């Protein structure tokens, strides 16, 4: 019989909150490791969804439902975590001001959390100064900025500039993303990384802070 952690991962990919919750309860009942259920089960499932999304085998609604399934399991398992898991680093995420398209950012958040990052979510319609303040106060290693509209894209460059002015660019790496954004655009505004989708964003985080 397939191991329960793999079945958890499969249930996330099958986008079934009920099945995930049931398996998570079984993990606890059988006295297995909640940590392993999270990393080898829930997070592994989300990573597979990310790969499927990048390959256009699934789309936004499916990823959102899989996230819901992942959280259904996480809510049950988190109370049983015995050792504080080692965070891979803190990430500040937000959508630039004037832009309220935050579905993509929310998916990045789920993927990053699943991969073990400590995420500080600034939400959508975030002023430049808020990014800078949050990055400075939280001691984040990474800032992820997204914009879904051509009209709000220039604000991403302003975030990079403002972090620079605040003297934070040595400690903070900036990754940009969003439908109209390209690798070339990210280089031009002086960002450190670019990702075309949520899975790619996590890979960029890993590349930039050497996790």
């Amino acid at each position: 019989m397939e191991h329960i952690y793999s079945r958890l991962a499969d249930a996330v990919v099958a986008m079934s909150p009920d099945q995930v919750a049931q398996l998570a309860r079984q993990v606890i009942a059988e006295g297995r490791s909640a940590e392993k259920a999270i990393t080898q089960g829930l997070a592994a499932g989300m990573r597979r969804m990310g790969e499927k999304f990048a390959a256009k085998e699934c789309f936004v609604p499916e990823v959102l439902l899989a996230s819901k399934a992942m959280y259904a399991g996480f809510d049950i398992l988190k109370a049983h975590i015995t050792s504080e898991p080692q965070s891979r680093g803190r990430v500040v995420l937000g959508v630039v001001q004037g832009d309220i398209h935050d579905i993509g950012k929310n998916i990045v958040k789920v993927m990053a959390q699943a991969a073990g990052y400590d995420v500080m979510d600034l939400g959508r319609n975030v002023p430049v100064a808020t990014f800078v303040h949050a990055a400075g106060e939280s001691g984040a290693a990474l800032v992820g900025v997204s914009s879904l509209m051509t009209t709000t894209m220039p604000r991403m460059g302003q975030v990079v500039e403002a972090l620079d002015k605040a003297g934070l660019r040595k400690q903070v790496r900036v990754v940009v993303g969003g439908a109209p954004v390209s690798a070339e655009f990210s280089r031009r505004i002086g960002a450190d990384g670019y990702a075309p989708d949520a899975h790619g964003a996590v890979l960029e985080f890993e590349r930039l802070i050497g996790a």
Partner: protein
Amino acid sequence: MNPVGRSALFRRDAGDSGPVVVPMVAANHAARIAGISVREVVTDAGALVSALHAAYRRYEYDGIVVFTDTVVEAEAMGCRVQIPADDDPYLVESPTARRLEPVDPEEVGRMPVVLAAIRRLVELTGGLVPVLGSLKGPFSLASFLAGPDRFFADLLERPDRARETLLVATDNQRWYQSAIIRAGGLPFIGDPVASGSMISPEMFREFAWPYIARLVEDAHALGVPVGLHVCGDTTSMLGHMRDTGSDFVSIDDIDIARARRDLGANTTIMGNVSTRLLLEGAPEQVRRAAERCLELALPRLILSSACDVAPDTPEANVKALVQAAREWGRE
């Protein structure tokens, strides 16, 4: 000036007086041209007319797109919307308590502003220039009404509830579309949330297509052609877009040669010079991109931008786009 009759827009080909060019110059870029704030242009019919007419006279393209922002109908139906001083309005909160219902487009919110602008622009251009009245596709409107997160969850978990929202959105849009047509406009359906970058072709077919097709049927019953624009990567759903019955299919920044192949020779394509190139490129690059569209997609082509022309796009680039159509086939 090269005015064309409104229905001629969709029949004419390169044989007579050259290709048709209708860049998607929305209220925000027009506001820059006219030196008026975006807020004024999207809330006041007089300002909207001044801006769109100024842009039309500046660029001398073949049709006027009346598009203020994506949330006009959602706002009228009860969504809370923020209108910044000089930026596009955006959705802040979807209605929660109130029961959703269609609202009178001549009375509620900013729909009357858009309708008044359409009427006035038709008058100002003597009925000779097609005036495209933008309205949201029911899928996008429904996502605003339910809230995008809930709507996407409903599509998979509670499809009946998603369909209920879609039906109310469709009823509202049928009413609004009939008012656009009465005002002298041609309906131009934009369905940005039904984007190929967001949902699968199968989901488009099930949850976007039937409701767009209903609007197209209504417009045709009133004897008027309709256009459809969907943002993002629509490569795998072009056939579904065409099968809505729309008289032209407007494509974002995708391969136009592939689009022509998939859509066949009989479908009019609108598009698709990259809005990023228009914003950041040089006029000569815009011209080459436009020529590529003309070469690959004529005769049934309305040369245009891939999506809305960004507010700060240099005028020289929009001019280069129009010029490419004017000089096509000449020495």
